[in-house]
């Protein structure tokens, strides 16, 4: 799941995948709250998982966790 999130995020924001870690915050990556929604929508389409938005999402790792919980 981490790799999928990194790929989608790197494509969306034109970032190098090497610069993205689980600890990276969205703020550091220049990802605002609506970008997060865009990411979740793209990831939902790619994975078939449906999640509820959580305004408190701060890091890439937290987004990965949210998606993994949605799959369970």
């Amino acid at each position: 799941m981490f790799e999928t999130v990194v790929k989608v995020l790197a494509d969306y924001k034109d970032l190098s995948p090497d610069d993205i870690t689980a600890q990276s915050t969205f703020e550091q990556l220049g990802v605002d709250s609506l970008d997060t929604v865009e990411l979740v929508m793209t990831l939902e389409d790619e994975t078939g998982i449906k999640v509820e938005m959580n305004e408190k999402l701060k890091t890439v790792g937290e987004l990965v966790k949210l998606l993994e919980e949605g799959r369970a």
Partner: protein
Amino acid sequence: MSLTIQGTGSALPAQTITNHMLAQIMDTSDEWITTRTGITERRILDTESLTDLSVRAAQNALDDAGIAPSALDLILCSTIRGDTITPSLACLVQGRIGASCPAFDLNAACTGFLYALDVADAYLNAGKARHILIVSAEAMSRIVDWRDRATCVLFGDGAGAAVVSRGDDLLGLRIQAQANDQWLIARSAGGSCPYSGEGDADTALHMNGQEVYKFAVSCVLDDVEWMTRQLGITPDDISLFVLHQANKRILEAVRARLKQPAGKFPSTIEKYGNTSSSSLPILLDEVSRAGKLAPGQLLFFSAFGAGLTNGACVLRWRKA
């Protein structure tokens, strides 16, 4: 399908409130608002009433259509909240423009114009009317929570109108609703009844911006897919996408997924913000008056809002 749009009109308050002005009274900035919403300014009612605004929009639409108020068979207003709880905004407009037909309001939040178009379609189809005036008018500045910097900056006031008559230019229309009082809600004020509990003091608008954004993008895309399939056309056949003006980034997200050029997505969000149900008729009036429409063009309308409600239609433009 039973109608054609004979004329359009709009009216905006004279008072302009820029992002810079908002930054003087709350913790926000032009950069924050512009990058997240595309909005640079909005209009807010000052001395004019919402009824005044509605009457101006209505008269513009009647002039554009070349139809006298006495020829109207119905006046439909969409509004979340008029100047008065009763009489309805529609009745006040009826009196001011000098019409004598039945008049009533409906509330479908930001989707109000398309709900009104659906009612008009039914009246015209049933032979109950020949000419109907639709006015969508909203004073969002009276509903938003001015202490909530994340939402109050998004909205503005405005009124848009359309005169619809019998015709065959409405090619498809669908309205939907799914109850949700969590993501977007503004409660009514309590009364003074001595036998009831205290009214809820919090009457301001609350919004879960992320969920509403997600709802908006997915329902517009779903409406485009459903409508184009019904009509056997593709998004390429649509000349203009007249979408509810809630956020520039919603428009852009939809445009990118449909792989359509930016020129097909006219907008007023920059200068008026989100004016709820009035945004569609205001936008339509502006593109019409700017000469951007030609007879025979297919226009796709889509709106979404509290309820949750959403709606879409495809209309063939007729006016030269």
